[in-house]
């Protein structure tokens, strides 16, 4: 990246209290996202991708969760240190989030136009009429058909795809530098998913915003991401440009994940499922967390490998003793 990154996440660790003990859901997660860049955080249930997003947004539930260490830098400010009032001014302003299920994020008893305008009224000094006009422009921008007529409709009048467009309009209302989208198309049918992905790509190109796109779907990653971070059990295990990741998946987990996808563009080869399952958060092994399921495991995997750049491609980093050529004699 040539210019300063839009957002830097630095050794972020978030913990949850279970039966009186704190357990890390994500450990020392670090990455940076540049302007105009889409970073995909990809992994299966429980890998920590959504917790990463909630930690960035300051939305980790306080009752049983905490950010134990690390920084989230936006414009030189550490979001982790902000109090709730400052965070509220930032969320929906410089940084915005789109959730998987728009129906639960939209207020069901308020018209959608009002909800978009409300965001603008909260973060800017626009008058009611100005906010309304700008909200309408935003709804048109995200291509809601007959936006003027539908301005005063309620969320339940809209389809899932249209609701997600409303959420995108709200997220973009204050021209954020960075948008976090957590599985924004997972609840949608594929033809509608394609429309929403195309809309997001278009808006990103237009505004230069950075996008963190969280998904479990590697097909979606391939079609939208510039760079990818693969997460497993709370760790980033591999990060690379989208081309490098799909051409040379290097961590054994990334490789296994790719060969466990039944592909629509190829005849059925033998699927290779990954045996076993992710260890529970209360019983994480001390070393590599994938070791239990890994066919390449060596003795050294009992200690945690660092994220190391590959010699051929400095921007391709992998957390694996064996694949980074440091597995000891056994490899």
């Amino acid at each position, binding site marked *: 990246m040539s210019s300063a990154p839009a957002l830097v996440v630095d050794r972020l660790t978030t913990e949850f209290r279970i039966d009186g003990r704190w357990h890390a859901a994500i450990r020392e997660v670090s990455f940076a996202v540049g302007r105009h860049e889409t970073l995909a955080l990809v992994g299966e249930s429980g890998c920590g991708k959504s917790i990463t997003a909630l930690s960035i947004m300051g939305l980790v539930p306080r009752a049983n969760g905490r950010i134990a260490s690390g920084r989230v830098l936006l414009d030189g400010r550490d979001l982790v240190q902000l109090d709730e009032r400052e965070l509220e001014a930032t969320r929906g302003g410089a940084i915005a989030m789109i959730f998987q299920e728009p129906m639960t994020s939209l207020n069901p008893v308020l018209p959608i136009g009002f909800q978009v305008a409300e965001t603008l009224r909260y973060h800017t000094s626009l008058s009611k009429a100005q906010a309304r006009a700008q909200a309408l422009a935003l709804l048109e921008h995200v291509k809601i058909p007959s936006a003027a007529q539908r301005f005063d409709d309620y969320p339940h009048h809209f389809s899932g795809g249209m609701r997600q467009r409303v959420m995108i309009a709200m997220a973009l209302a204050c021209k954020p530098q960075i948008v976090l989208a957590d599985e924004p198309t997972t609840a949608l049918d594929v033809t509608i998913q394609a429309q929403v992905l195309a809309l997001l790509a278009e808006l990103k190109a237009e505004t230069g915003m950075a996008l963190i796109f969280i998904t479990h779907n590697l097909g979606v990653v391939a079609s939208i991401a510039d760079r990818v971070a693969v997460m497993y059990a709370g760790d980033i295990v591999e990060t690379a440009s989208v081309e490098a990741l799909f051409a040379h998946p290097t961590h054994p987990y990334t490789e296994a994940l790719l060969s466990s996808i039944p592909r*629509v563009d190829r005849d059925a080869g033998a699927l290779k499922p990954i045996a076993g399952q992710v260890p529970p958060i209360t019983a994480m092994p001390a070393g590599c967390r994938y070791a239990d399921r890994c066919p390449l495991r060596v003795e050294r995997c009992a200690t945690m490998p660092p994220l190391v750049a590959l010699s051929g491609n400095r921007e391709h980093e992998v957390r694996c003793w064996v694949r980074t050529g440091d597995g000891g004699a056994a490899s």
Partner: protein
Amino acid sequence: MTTPLLEVRKLAKTFPVRHGFMGGRTGTVHALCDISFSVAAGEAFGLVGESGCGKSTTGRAILRLIEPDAGTVLFKAQDVYRADPRRLRALRREMQIVFQDPYSSLNPRRTIGQTLSEPMRVHGLGSPREIRSRVRALLAEVGMPVDAAEKYPHEFSGGQRQRIGIARALALEPELIVADEPVSALDVSIQAQILVLLRGLQRSRNLSFVFISHDLGVVRHFCRTVAVMYLGRIVERGPVPAIFDAPLHPYTRALRSASPVPDPKAKVIMMKLEGEVASAMAPPAGCHFHPRCPQAMPICSEVYPGWTQVTPDHGVACHLYPSPASEDAPRAQ
């Protein structure tokens, strides 16, 4: 040709709906219209389509879990809808269903052993002792530890629960399984485990499947023949390689190109389909797909297209392929 194991002929189903204040206004959802296909013994037949296309309704109609308005379902040449209660009970031993969400379809207050032995008890298959040993064999067959029989559903992960759901479907030694989105709720690595398990069972037991899914990748992997549904109708039906590599219907093509492929080089071919699926209460006149179709012609908004058999095993309902099916049936541009 030998008699297929399952033959579905011209199924139709409408649901009445009441809405508005106090359920005043009523309407009709056209859930299924003119659904026909057949499944051979040992074959995996796929039904694909997006939400609300009628694929799950079709699955339930096959098992007579809902009564259709018209049409017939023949299982081993016996009419499922005309079967008397005794015969229906016997038929249901041979046709079982696996649901998407195994958690909501397993009784949380019963141990897995109780859940698996119940169908055998109901059908009077063996002494309690024989049933216990059958339960152990079933658990082993789906890759579960034997002590699972003493545990409750909440003690298992989603993938394990789906294995239990499959074991329950197998308990009565069926010949046909209707699998309704059996892997949709699972992570990809677990999804692959279940698909491999189902494929193994298909081979070892010569099982037939009606495999319902919205995921084209999963269908391509598991099925030999596939029918694509849109708003209650089958719009294209054929062998899996043809449907996926040379789709005829513009909707199939759109669905195919909108399905994400894990390859960044493939992203440029993403074809955008405008608009959304119309309401099944008021499907558009003519071809239901015409308002979104990039190749719509004037006739498409007037007449629902007839079925054209483009090759002996590949058919489509689309005006781009006029009915007199001959060797040189016109192809789309």
